[in-house]
């Protein structure tokens, strides 16, 4: 196999995709991040920030801009990219944790997948052994997955981006580790998501799509790893698709009416903005119909599955502090305002 091109992608060698992409990311954003290659992680250019809680997230690659795109002032201190769709090993997580420890402890933001949880756990154990205080928050906002004590539980999906922004802003303003963790937990408790795919995606080393869909089929309840969803339905108008995502999201929390929310319409990587904004229109209509006020919004490809076409809808119930943290300055490759 070696250098052979297996799939139609802008890549050289499937085995070098993550390394080469992260290297390019580092070159393109040298004002914001520094990239370490062995073990591989991406860290704020000014890390460690003395006295500030450090925040580390990470997971399999293929979800860009998550997580490296959120490293910078007001958000993450470091991101640890694993192989495509494969959680990183403890070594780089530990290295990143040490690199961002400014003496106030480090928060791990972990998406709820067995691999991510186990590898971050090991890294946290190793960091504690080196006298770094680590707390972990596990994100599990995907309502497509039936939750139970006896299963792996819900996946972490779109809500992760919001947790990273709000926890990042809390750390930036100087909150303690416990306070930052509390914000992250609070956001996680108030956020729900669900997604669908129009097309599958192809993992570079696999060379074949993770599932196949007929011309008129859609996969509902997908995660972000190209894994199939819960249900397969016939192609339907956009408004119906939006309803199929947002209704379970709103029912789950539940949203009672009268709340203020952040509405996040996310593309899976290959979805053009023209479609996401069209979906946003309907989602806004549904929220209005339920007497929920959209106070903030986010639309774009922010947590993705390679080139998959599809979308997810995330709704976060906001309180005053969350709004303040959302509006706080952020300077990362993928989210930036106020500086």
């Amino acid at each position, binding site marked *: 196999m070696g250098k052979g091109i297996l799939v139609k992608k802008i890549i050289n060698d499937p085995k070098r995709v993550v390394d080469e992409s992260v290297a390019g990311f580092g070159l393109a954003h040298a004002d914001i991040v520094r990239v370490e290659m062995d073990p591989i992680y991406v860290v704020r250019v000014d890390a460690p920030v003395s006295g500030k809680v450090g925040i580390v997230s990470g997971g399999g690659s293929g979800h860009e801009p998550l997580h490296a795109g959120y490293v910078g002032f007001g958000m993450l201190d470091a991101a640890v990219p694993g192989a495509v769709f494969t959680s990183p090993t403890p070594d780089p997580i530990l290295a990143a944790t040490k690199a961002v420890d400014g003496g106030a402890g480090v928060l791990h933001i972990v998406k709820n997948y067995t691999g991510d949880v186990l590898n971050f756990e090991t890294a946290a154990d190793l960091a504690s052994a080196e006298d770094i205080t680590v707390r972990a928050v596990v994100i599990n906002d995907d309502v497509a997955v039936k939750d139970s004590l006896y299963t792996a539980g819900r996946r972490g999906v779109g809500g992760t981006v919001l947790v990273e922004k709000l926890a990042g802003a809390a750390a930036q303003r100087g909150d303690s580790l416990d306070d930052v963790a509390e914000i992250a937990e609070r956001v996680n408790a108030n956020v729900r998501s669900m997604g669908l795919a129009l097309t599958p995606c192809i993992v570079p080393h*696999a060379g074949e799509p993770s599932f196949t869909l007929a011309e008129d089929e859609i996969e509902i309840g997908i995660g972000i790893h190209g894994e199939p969803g819960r249900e397969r339905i016939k192609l339907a108008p956009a408004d119906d698709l939006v309803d199929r995502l947002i209704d379970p999201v709103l029912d789950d929390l539940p949203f009672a009416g009268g709340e203020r929310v952040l509405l996040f319409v996310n593309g899976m990587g290959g979805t053009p903005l023209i479609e996401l904004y069209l979906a946003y229109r309907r989602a806004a209509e549904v929220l209005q119909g339920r007497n929920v006020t959209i106070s903030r919004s986010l639309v774009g490809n922010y947590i993705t599955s390679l080139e998959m076409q599809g979308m997810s809808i995330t709704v976060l119930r906001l309180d005053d502090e969350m709004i303040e943290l959302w509006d706080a300055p952020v300077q990362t490759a993928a989210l930036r305002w106020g500086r």
Partner: protein
Amino acid sequence: MGLDITWAVDWVRRSADVIAEHRVELIKLDREIGDGDHGENMDRGFQAVLPKLDDLPAGSTPGDVLKLVATTLISTVGGAAGPLYGTAYLKGAVAAGSATSLDGSAIAAVLTAARDGIVLRGKAESGDKTMVDAWTPAAEAADAAASNGSDVAAVLGAAADAAATGSDATIPLVARKGRASYLGERSAGHRDPGAQSSALLLRAAAEAASAAAGA
């Protein structure tokens, strides 16, 4: 006759071979109910172990080999399988201790410790459609064979047979742990990739033991 460092090293080499050979099959199994990386992950891990075998100091024990496999898998595999297999080999190494040779009941103890390690980390029960469904019957079969006084090759042969049967038995199950659990009912009808890689690794152990016995 017990199994020594030569067997342990041979097991690792055979493991790397069999995983490389079945890389695409494991990817395919994982694509059906997971995220399509299990073969890639395991292959990356075992290929990383191979060169390190040459650096084992003289006088190393089977336990040292298992520990080397453990740390290498932990630091190169990632995903769920990395920490789970890593813990399995680590606990196996502890059970093997500093013995230079492992007899049938020592081997059974290694496998049981490995299985316990996986359960400790992953919290899966039998029937959850995970690698536990290969390891539990394998450990039990090894234990039974060792109690019957079988030789080490037979102990590992029994474990490998039981693991293969266990892997087959995952097909109809609905997953309750790991990524396949997100599919709910749709996970039924597919073999669990981790159970299958476990069966392959235990078969390699048995073959290495037979080869050692034949030599």
